[in-house]
């Protein structure tokens, strides 16, 4: 009784914990996806301005990123071509040598995964630079080339990923298969090509995929080894560091969509294989019927998903948010106008005696009085992002009030900037 209730409680607790955990895992992705479709030029969800697909266009027109994409693709190809065979060699060596030496070799080969990427990057360019100089190579030579150095640096640790995959697969290999082939008269080369390699084929595919991804994603090593060039990831990083806009969210949406398509197709392939292997497929009516068989075939599912994505892209490219954006702009202008009117009325009330020239500002004024006036005018509006305390006294001749520092964010640099910052469009 108590055990049953504990089990039930445990199940509830684990369900609740799992839900919270996946909320943490997916929350950032969902938020990022949402910001990709908001026309606000800072990536945000709340104030929602207009639904737009323009950020995808901005992304595709980013020359630096797109150039980096091609550089990354070349590097990725090179890394896969070198790291997969190298990882295979490492795994084969580990499976073959004496146990005592195996631990040592394993430690050496796995170290690059643990070593900080910064260290790998620095050691790579220093080493190849020294080799190049020792060979009397000009500084335009191969060993001073960003793409070559990046491939060399990435292969060092990416090969270890491939090696781990091959090692896991090799552990399930039955060596008597090779013995049998040799006994039946196969040459050693044939035994390798016809027995071991086919057994490793799924591992080769996943190793190639993982190494490509690792190469593409890598930042820490690449940012050193790429020198003056830029890969997709380093271009992305410099973009994020020096000012962010929602086109990065659009990129995330594209990556998430591709991942989901890939994951669902992979799942379909796995299910089909399991169904066929277990013999369930032969009995099931779904697989028995030609139409049903076609419907659950992974290729059909992939085609369907690609078609859906294509439709979304087509619809998105035709969507025009300019009317809505103009509306938002108009709304802001109206609000601004209203605030200015209120301000003028208040200034007339507070300082009635001298004829205060509110607009245009007095020739001798440095404009800060104007900014101060808006600052004080905005505060009663109850705006959340209150500007920094600018002089509240709305006197135009405020000689002591310094002009707002250009770098300080909350202080409005221009009256317009200040006014815009205070306004929250409705519905946000």
């Amino acid at each position, binding site marked *: 009784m108590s055990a049953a209730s504990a089990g039930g409680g445990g199940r509830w607790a684990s369900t609740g914990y799992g839900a919270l955990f996946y909320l943490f895992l997916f929350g950032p992705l969902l*938020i990022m996806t949402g910001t990709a479709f908001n026309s606000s030029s800072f990536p945000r969800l709340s104030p929602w301005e207009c639904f737009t697909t323009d950020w995808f266009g901005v992304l595709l027109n980013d020359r630096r990123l797109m150039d980096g994409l091609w550089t990354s693709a070349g590097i990725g190809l090179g890394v896969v071509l070198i790291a997969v065979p190298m990882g295979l060699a490492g795994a084969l060596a580990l499976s*073959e040598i004496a146990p005592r030496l195996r631990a040592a070799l394993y430690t050496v080969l796995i170290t690059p995964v643990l070593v900080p990427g910064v260290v790998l990057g620095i050691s790579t360019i220093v080493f190849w630079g020294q080799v190049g100089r020792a060979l009397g190579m000009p500084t335009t030579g191969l060993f001073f080339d960003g793409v070559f150095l990046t491939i060399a640096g990435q292969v060092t640790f990416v090969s270890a990923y491939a090696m781990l995959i091959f090692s896991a697969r090799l552990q399930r290999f039955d060596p008597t298969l090779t013995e049998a082939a040799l006994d039946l008269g196969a040459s050693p080369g044939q035994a390798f090509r016809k027995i071991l390699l086919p057994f490793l084929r799924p591992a080769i595919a996943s190793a190639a995929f993982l190494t490509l*991804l690792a190469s593409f994603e890598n930042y820490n090593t690449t940012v050193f080894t790429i020198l003056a060039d830029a890969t997709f990831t380093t271009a992305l990083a410099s973009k994020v560091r020096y000012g962010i806009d929602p086109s990065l969210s659009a990129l995330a949406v594209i990556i998430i969509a591709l*991942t989901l398509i890939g994951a669902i197709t992979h*799942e379909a392939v796995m299910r089909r294989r399991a169904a066929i292997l277990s013999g369930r497929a032969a009995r099931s009516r779904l697989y028995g019927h030609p139409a049903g068989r076609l419907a659950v075939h992974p290729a059909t599912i992939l085609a369907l998903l690609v078609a859906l994505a294509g439709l979304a892209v087509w619809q998105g490219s035709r969507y025009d948010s300019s009317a809505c954006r103009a509306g938002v702009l108009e709304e802001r202008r109206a609000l601004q106008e209203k605030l200015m009117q209120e301000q003028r009325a208040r200034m007339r009330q507070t300082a009635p005696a001298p004829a205060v020239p509110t607009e245009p500002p007095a020739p001798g004024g440095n404009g800060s009085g104007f900014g101060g006036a808006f600052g004080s005018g905005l505060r009663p509006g109850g705006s959340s992002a209150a500007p920094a305390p600018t002089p509240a006294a709305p006197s135009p001749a405020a000689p002591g009030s310094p002009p707002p520092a250009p770098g300080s964010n909350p202080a409005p640099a221009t009256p317009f900037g200040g006014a815009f910052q205070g306004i929250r469009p409705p519905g946000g």
Partner: protein
Amino acid sequence: MSALAAGLKGFAGRYGPGVALFVGIAVTVWVVLLITLPQLAMIDISLRGSGALHGGTGAGHTLSNYAYFLFGPNGQGNLFDVAILLRTIVAAVAVTLIDVVICYPVAYILAHVASGVGARLMVLGLIVPFWINEILRAFAFRIIFGSTGLINGLGTSLGFLAHPVDFIGADVALYSSLAYSYILLMIFPIYNAVEALDRNQIEAARDMGASWPRIHWRIVLPVAKPGIASGATIVFMLTAGALAAPQILGGPSSLWFTQLVYQWFNEAGNWPRGAAYATVLLVTCLGFVLLMMKVFRVPIGAIGR
């Protein structure tokens, strides 16, 4: 070496000399040309004076770059850089502990509670965020925690925050992002270890009246220990060596040690000093990991399994 040769000989007998040659050459190139020599080159240049600014070999060897790290430009002690190193290590330990706490229950659920479609969906859900670029993950946390970000926007408009909180300056965004980024690398080693546990042991302990905390402490945790050690090592090393997330999410006043390395190397153009700082980082991190393994009695072969 002789053992290696014997291994290769066995290989040649089974798969032919061509394969043995390929394995021998590939592993040698990897170990010597890609792993060992570059590390030695880095240590070598870190021992050169400023005559070797851009990778050239200046006059003889000197310890001046390491002395600079410890004692600063005028020999009075370089509290600033040493403090950054310590802070990086402490923060990496904190992120690692957070990940252990978050991931241990998930790994246990995945291995022993969930089943069938639910378990497959859970694994899929773990992998999807990991596919997203590291830079974009940091970017997402900037959207959430920025001064005009989601939490501050919601908080101020709903009224439970009087004024925006500086999450970036307080490094909340950075730690969350780092913990988020390496969750998968913590869960899979723990999962692999816990999965090997025989469920009957849990049932038996429960039948004999053990409470859930006691079952986990006495039965599940000992089995999970190698997995936790493996995951914690990977997460610690990656966190301490992270560069992108601190660059994007770090507060203006707080630096990660990798950023110092980056500054010396790329911005100041002082390769020897950058290499010296990188060596300091490497030695400190590896030393710390080895120390922890000694303390918790975990063999190094457990890593990555």
